[in-house]
């Protein structure tokens, strides 16, 4: 399905019903930089786990990603644009409140969503994400040309079929223009952080959790690219969302 959003950007999303609804709020899954709902969540086995837990799953492809439109101007990739997209999507679906699970960039956007509209986020999981600005020092340089953890991520995802490196570079610059700051934290939204023990992109996740009074779950032996599909991650999320 698609929804028309800000700046004539059309967003592809999926809306998957639970196997048997327990009346819980839907779960909004926000994928990471350079991936899509299908790659980040579906292939990693998430919809089935959440559907079996009685949860409706709403999974957008964020602007610049997957089957959604991919503008190439960095000014269209500020966190506020993603937040607007998500709020419009929820409005279009007539969904008032969701639980949000983000991965990597999706976590940063989950945080921004909860700051902007705390009443619409019941609980939130930030995974593959830490307080260190992954895009620090990007400036005007082309992403993927250096040796930071983000450069490695960029090179990997830019080569994936269906991705537009120009749109992804614009997205990286748009995000870098408004760096993540850990204060203020979204008020009244219970939070869980999850990270692979070897995840360098999520360095400091446990510190951020401590500073926010959030829970923290570490996935042993996993790095940024392979923590997503880990059973321990899924179990922690199902437990936390209740």
């Amino acid at each position, binding site marked *: 399905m698609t929804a028309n959003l800000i700046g004539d950007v059309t967003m592809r999303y999926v809306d998957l019903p639970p196997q048997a609804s327990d009346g819980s709020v839907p779960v909004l899954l926000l994928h990471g930089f350079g991936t899509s709902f299908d*790659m980040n969540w579906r*292939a*990693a*086995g998430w919809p*089935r*786990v959440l559907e079996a837990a009685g949860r409706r799953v709403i999974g957008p492809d964020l602007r610049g990603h997957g089957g959604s439109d991919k503008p190439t101007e960095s000014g269209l990739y500020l966190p506020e644009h993603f937040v607007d997209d998500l709020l419009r999507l929820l409005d279009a679906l007539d969904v008032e409140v969701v639980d949000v699970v983000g991965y990597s960039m999706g976590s940063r956007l989950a945080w921004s969503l909860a700051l902007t509209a705390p009443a619409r986020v019941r609980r939130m999981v930030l995974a593959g994400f830490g307080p260190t600005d992954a895009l620090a020092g990007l400036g005007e340089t082309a992403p993927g040309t250096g040796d930071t953890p983000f450069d490695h991520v960029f090179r*990997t995802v830019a080569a*994936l*079929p269906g991705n537009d490196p120009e749109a992804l570079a614009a997205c990286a610059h748009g995000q870098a223009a408004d760096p993540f700051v850990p204060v203020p934290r979204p008020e009244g939204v219970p939070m869980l952080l999850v990270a692979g023990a070897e995840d360098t992109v999520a360095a400091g996740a446990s510190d951020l959790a401590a500073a926010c009074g959030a829970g923290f779950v570490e996935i042993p032996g996993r790095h940024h*690219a*392979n923590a*997503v*599909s*880990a*059973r321990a991650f899924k179990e922690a999320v199902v437990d936390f969302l209740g």
Partner: protein
Amino acid sequence: MAEENITFTLPDLGEGLVEATVLEWQVAVGDVIGRNDPLVEVETTKSAVVIPSPQAGRVVELHAEEERVVPVGDPLVTFAVEVAEAPQAGIVGRVPTEEAAPRRRVRLKPPAE
């Protein structure tokens, strides 16, 4: 019902990938699982994915230990699946010609006891 063993090999994961590393089995020997239940989590050079079970059955053997690299096409798991008791229902009457071959799969009524 009789049982038959069926072995499932590592499928082609696309994009020219020729192997994958087993990260974590989602099933154990003896488990009875349904079609599309999570079977095994594997990692390629591109991503980590959970492969759903291609069929229902009882897991009788896992062919790869966790952290082992498995080439595409190598055995992954063996299931025991229920099959109809031999002998199979015979054909009564004239053998249909090729022209009359059914175009759709239909469910045949079992013979009355």
